[in-house]
């Protein structure tokens, strides 16, 4: 069977599975819809969180990014896993004990203010929308490359699937489809990685293969890659080119941003007890770590393969995959010196080949000449990763509208049944908007994903941490901190990513900190402003201080309730 039939077969099977699960787990109340009734076992929640978290960017993008940046890519590995330690130790158990439905719920109640609540809703919406547009685009790309349908049709198919199970099942449906999606995506990621690891090093464990000797040679794979890279004028793979301060800032911003992402936090509201919240954070990171420790190995294999296959070789002799990707425009070859050979070097003047890092994971099995079903599996895995994250984000968006805005502020006396209807309508609207951005992607999608982390780091993280660990933090301090944090982050991003406020190049960065790393600075600003401003205002009321006392003790978490 050819790749296209295999892909079609695997996509149809996996999609029917997701739809089947959705029908089996329909939501009957707002509690089902927002937090799966609070009955999700920790293991299932760990699996669902892992799928929720690992998006098209983790599955398709990260290994490629690592492959092209070497050591510098470590910021993503440490940043996107280290955040779970913060989440497990500093946030998840306390927010679960608090026992409401959403992050703005906590911020609004803890800071006894609807203004603070609205600021939080605004941040949640902003973070989630920027994220979800990229997921829809990822779905479209996979469809177009493997099933040869137009990207727009791919986006619409993806929308219909997500619409079906997110609207019908809410959090309950999403949780159990995410469990299935995790299994699909991790299988799809590991199979080619193991194949290639055996092929190149003889070691079936990619994490070990990465540090082994090349099969049939006396050199270590990493030394070989360093040598190849330097000979071609690239930086040695295991050295970085970013400044140490910038590496520290980006890593910290990604860690703290991860811990502040509303669609991840809300997953910890779905388990029955505080101890389950802690445990499921552990499971989640374990399942994420399987992919995140394999990705750097895949990156090394792919980079070595690519350099060996193309560099200095005649263009005419390129294998089939090279031409296929050329037609998508993701591989570009321009024979500058007209010698018919491919000069691939770090020197922009004479370099003739441009490869988009995003194709690494998709093209890797083809480059390594693996069987057709393995190539098709990667497509199904990419779809699972994109759909699971999209669904989680859409739920945050619809909850923010139906619960945080309508129920909590505009019409508090609405019945549970009508709130459920509203939540479903909001989900439909959110899917349509996400689909629109998937079909007409704004140019700034890539830039705003970094902004999403920066925003989460600059706003939610300090407000939640202070809310739990500093009893005397009052609404004035928290609100001022969030506004300054977000403001600083927006200013820096708009100036250096979108050329506003006079723009500027990397020379003008403050202390050489890139916009991706600025979330760390904005977060520190938030902490400083919150603490200083709070000193000038009255302590929070007695009953709020009691809430804080209460969430610190795990006993009696009980069922989450809307009141």
């Amino acid at each position, binding site marked *: 069977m050819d790749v296209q039939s295999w892909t079609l077969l695997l996509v149809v099977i996996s999609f029917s599975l997701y739809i089947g699960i959705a029908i089996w787990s329909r939501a009957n109340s707002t509690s089902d819809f927002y937090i799966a009734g609070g009955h999700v076992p920790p293991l299932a929640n760990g699996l669902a969180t892992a799928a929720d978290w690992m998006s098209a960017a983790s599955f398709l993008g990260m290994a490629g990014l*690592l492959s092209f940046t070497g*050591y510098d*890519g*470590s910021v993503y*590995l*440490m940043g996107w*896993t*280290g955040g*779970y*330690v913060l989440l*497990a*130790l*500093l946030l998840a*158990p306390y927010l679960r004990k608090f026992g409401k439905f959403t992050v703005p719920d906590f911020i609004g109640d803890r800071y006894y203010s609807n203004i603070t609540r609205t600021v939080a809703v605004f941040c949640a919406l902003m973070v989630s929308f920027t994220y979800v547009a990229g997921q829809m685009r990822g779905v479209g790309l996979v469809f177009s490359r493997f099933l040869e349908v137009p990207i727009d049709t791919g986006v619409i198919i993806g929308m219909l699937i997500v619409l079906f199970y997110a609207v019908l099942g809410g959090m309950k449906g999403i949780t159990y489809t995410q469990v299935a999606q995790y299994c699909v995506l991790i299988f799809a990621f590991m199979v080619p990685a193991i194949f290639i690891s055996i092929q190149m090093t003889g070691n079936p464990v990619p*994490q*070990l293969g*990465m*540090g*082994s*000797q090349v099969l049939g040679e006396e050199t*270590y*794979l*990493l*030394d070989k890659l360093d040598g190849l890279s330097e000979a071609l004028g690239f930086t040695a793979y*295991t050295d970085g080119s970013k400044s*140490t301060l910038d*590496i*520290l800032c980006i*890593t*910290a911003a990604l860690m703290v941003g991860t811990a502040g992402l509303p669609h991840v936090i809300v997953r910890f509201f779905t388990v029955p*007890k*505080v*101890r389950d919240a*802690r*445990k499921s*954070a*552990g499971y989640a*990171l*374990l399942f994420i*770590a399987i992919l*995140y*420790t394999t990705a*750097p190995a895949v990156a090394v294999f792919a980079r070595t393969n690519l350099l060996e296959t193309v560099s200095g070789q005649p263009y005419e002799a390129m294998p089939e995959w090279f031409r296929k990707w050329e037609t998508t425009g993701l591989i570009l070859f321009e024979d500058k010196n007209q010698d018919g050979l491919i000069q691939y070097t770090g020197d922009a003047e004479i370099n003739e080949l441009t490869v988009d890092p995003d194709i690494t994971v998709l093209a890797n099995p083809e480059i390594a000449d693996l069987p057709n079903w393995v190539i098709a599996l990667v497509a199904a895995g990419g779809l699972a990763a994109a759909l699971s994250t999209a669904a989680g984000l859409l739920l945050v968006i619809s909850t923010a509208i139906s619960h945080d805005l309508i129920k909590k502020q505009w019409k508090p006396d609405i019945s549970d049944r009508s709130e459920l209807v509203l939540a479903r309508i909001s989900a439909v609207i959110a899917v349509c908007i996400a689909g629109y951005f998937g079909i007409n992607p704004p140019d700034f999608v890539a830039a705003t994903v970094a902004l999403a982390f920066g925003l989460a780091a600059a706003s939610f993280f300090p407000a939640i941490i202070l809310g739990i660990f500093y009893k005397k933090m009052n609404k004035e301090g928290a609100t001022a901190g969030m506004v300054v944090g977000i403001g600083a982050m927006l200013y820096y991003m708009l100036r250096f990513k979108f050329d506003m406020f006079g723009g500027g190049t990397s020379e003008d960065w403050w202390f050489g900190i890139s916009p991706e790393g600025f979330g760390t600075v904005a977060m520190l600003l938030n902490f400083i402003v919150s603490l200083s401003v709070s000193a000038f205002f009255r302590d929070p009321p007695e009953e709020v201080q009691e809430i804080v*006392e209460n969430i*610190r*003790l*795990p*006993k*009696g*978490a009980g069922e989450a309730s809307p009141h």
Partner: protein
Amino acid sequence: MEKPQHNARAYWRQNLRYLIVLLAIWFLVSFGAGVLFKDVLNTIKIGGFGLGFWFAQQGSIYVFVLLIFIYVRLMNKLDKKFGYDDED
């Protein structure tokens, strides 16, 4: 049994102590071994890996997973000791 108020304070203080130790390790393996001391550690080779590079792309992640499970164990014990465990 001591007074509940006193109990709660002792529980919280022990919790904070655990957090400080665990987060110090969290900081050391990532920001320390993976970034700040990377070049020094890279002079030590384990298989094909320089140790600093290994911490940045592999080791720190393994330690993160361990840290959470250690925290889970410590807190479950602490909950039991102070009678805050939530068995049905």
